[in-house]
């Protein structure tokens, strides 16, 4: 397999802290590689080094087996593009945003117009050309950023947490677009995520990162099987828990994740397991209510994080669960820090890895 890009013994330090620690990594042409790891594990730094926006403190970067240096940096950068975690749009119309990279490449006006309209169609923003980019919703802005990267048709596309802070509908749309770009245009994709579910389903390979190192790399199935080795560190991943599983009579499993904290999952499992629950699968309520959900846990809100359309909450039920609700629900429910709430989710939403 041909590596499209390669990092050899790359270390990156900022003011004494090591963000990347002796990382060697080959990106295979045509793959989707997910970088999975908790916040601060070095995913963003790795992407910035691959995007040739950041020079490693030590080590080398290769692009199609050519070493990147000062002489060919700007030319090499044309082969790759990064979509930032925090959407950064130019204060201009959607059209000018998406056309930016094509203008820089001195493409013909007609060709630019054609490509921009195709890219906007791909991200389902047809007819948005003349709208001011910064006046769009968060999800739409993220899609403009994605279109602006896709339109360049670079051989390597880098995505930094592309669905973080997005509602499930926009997140699913972005995942679909990414998969399509990979299948139809054969674009090689490297994507940072701390979403287990995303890392399990979308990519060809997964690289587990921790403390600036790549600990494990391989197919999702193989990597998650080996996960137990680094389980402790992955508890830092959102809604990923470990515990002891016991099979029940009704073909379900009860996992004990803490003192008096049990979670019911479907299927039969025994012994130590790791599972993940997508934050959007969790229902939040102020009072206990009857439902078909097998898991109803009482806890307190310990953290409130406001993003564009969503509010992310941490609910401590013995273990911290991340829950996301719309801004509207948040204000309707009149929630505040330390409030007593119930979280509910189906046994089938518990994904045992």
């Amino acid at each position: 397999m041909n590596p499209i890009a390669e990092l050899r013994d790359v270390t990156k330090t900022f003011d004494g802290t090591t963000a990347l620690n002796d990382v060697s990594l080959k990106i295979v042409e045509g793959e989707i590689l997910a970088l999975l790891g908790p916040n601060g594990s070095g995913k963003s730094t790795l992407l910035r080094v691959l995007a040739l926006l950041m020079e490693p403190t030590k080590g080398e970067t290769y692009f199609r087996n050519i070493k990147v240096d000062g002489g060919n940096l700007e030319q090499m950068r044309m082969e790759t593009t990064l979509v930032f975690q925090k959407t950064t749009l130019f204060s201009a119309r959607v059209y000018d945003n998406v056309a930016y990279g094509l203008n820089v490449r001195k493409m013909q006006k007609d060709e630019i117009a054609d490509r921009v309209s195709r890219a906007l169609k791909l991200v389902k923003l047809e007819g948005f050309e003349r709208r001011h980019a910064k006046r769009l919703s968060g999800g739409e802005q993220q899609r403009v950023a994605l279109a602006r990267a896709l339109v360049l048709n670079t051989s390597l596309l880098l995505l930094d947490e592309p669905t973080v802070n997005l509602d499930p509908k926009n997140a699913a749309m972005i995942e679909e677009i990414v998969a399509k770009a990979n299948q139809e245009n054969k674009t090689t994709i490297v994507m940072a995520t701390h979403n287990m579910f995303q890392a399990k389903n979308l990519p060809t390979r997964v690289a587990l990162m921790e403390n600036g190192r790549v600990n494990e790399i391989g197919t999702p199935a193989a990597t998650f099987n080996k996960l137990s080795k680094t389980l402790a560190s992955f508890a830092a991943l959102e809604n990923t828990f470990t515990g002891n599983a016991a099979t029940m009579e009704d073909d379900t499993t009860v996992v004990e994740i803490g003192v008096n904290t049990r979670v019911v999952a479907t299927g039969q499992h025994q012994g130590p397991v790791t599972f993940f629950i997508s934050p959007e699968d969790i229902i939040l309520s102020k009072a206990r209510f009857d439902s078909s959900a097998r898991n109803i846990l009482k806890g307190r809100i310990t953290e409130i994080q406001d993003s564009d359309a969503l509010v992310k909450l941490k609910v401590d039920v013995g273990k911290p669960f991340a829950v996301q609700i719309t801004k509207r629900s948040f204000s309707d429910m009149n929630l505040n820090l330390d409030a007593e709430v119930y979280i509910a989710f189906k046994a089938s939403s518990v994904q045992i890895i």
Partner: protein
Amino acid sequence: MNEIMDGLIKAFQLIFSGDPRVIEITLRSLYVSGAATLIATLWGIPIAMVLGLRNFRTKFILKGICHALLGIPTVGLGLILYLFLSKAGPAGFFGLLYTPTAIIIGEAILITPIIVSLATAAIENVDPEIVNQAKTLGASESQASVTVLKEAMAGVILAGIASFNRAIAELGVAQMVGGNIAGSTEVLTTAVSNETQRGNIELSIALAIILLTLVFVISITVNVYQRRRK
């Protein structure tokens, strides 16, 4: 009271009758301040881009000097320029003293700190990720810098307008190096000052109305423009 009303009425008559002297002084003021702003912009923006985008050790000293020069007394600067441009001075051989060119140079120097300070602040206010964003889309170092300048454009225009307003409203430099020579270096501020002393109140009022109107209209236009951009 009557005197003031009388002066006001006559002033409006002067303005609306299209008095040739009023027109001439107004146009010269616009030309001199406009040219000074243009020159200050041409050398001020590149300085602002370096101060706003690059990190170097002496940066804070340069920014400090600029801030300190914001409030420079115009008479003081006028005197220094006068000494430079007078026949005995080091630049005397150019023969620029008491010419519109001398006022343009003087005002350009006067407003450079304004344009540099305000434009630097506007550039520094641009999301620092814009440079990286431009680069990852393929922009070269200089193309990325131009993109940042475009993002800061509202602030840069504001800097230009503030500079123009300062130039057209200042008296010291225009008086000291221009000399208020009728038909040659008379501008709005110097004419208001000198005509008042001569007791020519209606002309003074007419010119002052024009000066204030210009400054207000420009400021309001900028405000409206900025609001619409948001």
